[in-house]
């Protein structure tokens, strides 16, 4: 808990590091990579639900970070800038996936869904932590790409509405609207699958 807090503090108070990185300091760049690597990986993982895709996007994001950090205009906008790179790479990969790959993913998703459904409809079952993670990822997968991106950025990455709007180049109200409908959809999915807050407490 304490280490997490310190990491969060370091991530949110790294203005001098960002300035040094902008000026070409490789050590500062490496430190920033260490600070943000886990966040970007988890963003991409929740987006794709796939380790290899997430690793690929994360590496591409930080390579772009190394090459383009000097272009960053304001230090305060670093977080949004980094997530914008990651989000663009995620979108690019999704766009490039050919039809057969999409078919494979759909098939794979259907299999996972079937397994997850078998678990969901047993209300007395106690969930292992990893099982619950799988179920929640499955719920995220049911969202469309636009809603999923907004939900992940807000709920897991803690971006402000203004930052998400900046990353996705959308009006703030559109972001809020997508989030509302995304959460509404997730609620329906979780209710249909018997996942309640009581499960978390047990």
């Amino acid at each position: 808990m304490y280490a997490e807090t310190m990491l969060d503090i370091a991530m949110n108070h790294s203005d001098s590091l960002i300035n040094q990185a902008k000026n070409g300091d490789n050590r500062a760049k490496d430190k920033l990579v260490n600070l943000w690597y886990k966040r970007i990986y988890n963003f991409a993982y929740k987006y794709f639900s796939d380790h290899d895709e997430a690793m690929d996007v994360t590496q591409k994001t930080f390579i772009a970070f190394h090459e383009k950090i000097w272009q960053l205009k304001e230090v305060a906008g670093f977080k949004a800038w980094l997530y914008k790179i990651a989000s663009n790479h995620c979108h690019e990969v999704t766009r490039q996936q050919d039809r057969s790959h999409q078919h494979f993913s759909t098939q794979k998703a259907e299999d996972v869904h079937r397994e997850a459904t078998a678990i969901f409809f047993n209300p007395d079952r106690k969930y292992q932590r990893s099982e619950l993670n799988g179920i929640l990822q499955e719920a995220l997968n049911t969202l469309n790409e636009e809603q999923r991106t907004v939900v992940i950025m807000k709920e897991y990455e803690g971006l402000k509405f203004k930052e998400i709007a900046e990353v996705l180049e959308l009006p703030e109200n559109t972001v809020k609207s997508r989030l509302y409908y995304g959460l509404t959809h997730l609620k329906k999915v979780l209710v249909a699958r018997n996942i309640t807050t009581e499960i978390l407490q047990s």
Partner: protein
Amino acid sequence: MSYIPDEITLTNYLYGELSEDESNKVEEYLKQNPAMAAEIKGLSSTREIMSAYDDKEVIPPLDLSNKPKNSNVSDVRKRISRIMAIAASVSLLLVVGYFTDFKLSYNDQGLFIGFKKQTEIPQGVTLDQIESLLDAALDKNLAVQNQNLVEVKTEMQSDYQSLFINQGKTFETKLEQRMNFDKQELDRYTKDLQEKNAILVNDYFRTAGLEQQTYVKNLLIDFTGYLEEQRVQDRDFYLNRLIDLKLSSDLKQQETEQMLTSIIKSVNNISTEETTQNF
């Protein structure tokens, strides 16, 4: 009630981003619309459930700055390498052609491909003569070619040797420089790590000290409260005991008075009886 909040206002409400007035308006609306209130409560629960999704652990790579940018760049590099290879092959052919005195020409007599100077073929010669002329020319050419090849080979060997020696020296120098640089980097990294650890430990002890201080303070406050409560309980206890004692004393006094009254009455009765008997 005419006020109906849209999904943007409800999202702001859900994330606590409304002003107090707006928030009150939404709450008033929700009081009058239980279905919507249940919906908002459900969304809040959904957020709570989704927040249980743990992050996955991942180890950052040691150095990303030297990795190739992407597949496009490697494609470009491959294409450049291919062009360079073709160019090198053409250059080699030209060099070999130059050393072997390669000739290619076309005139009224036909196409001529060969080495060295073109030999005039005398008119009216026989086929055998042409063959012997060709054999002689080819033998001569072959001998010249072999000699040239030996020269080229010797020259290339000496070039390769000198290149190899030079490259070896350059590599050693670079390796030494790199090792020195790595050592400096390692020292700097270790120093940096030590400083960071010192700050972390310092922060930890400071935070732990503050937490301990707060804990002891709270403990003292709790203990004082306990003592106060105990004192009040003791006081009530002794007060009750005193009241009991007083009641008990009053009872005893009444009993004693009754007993004395009874004794006095008995004594009076006896004395009256004695007086009556005497009379």
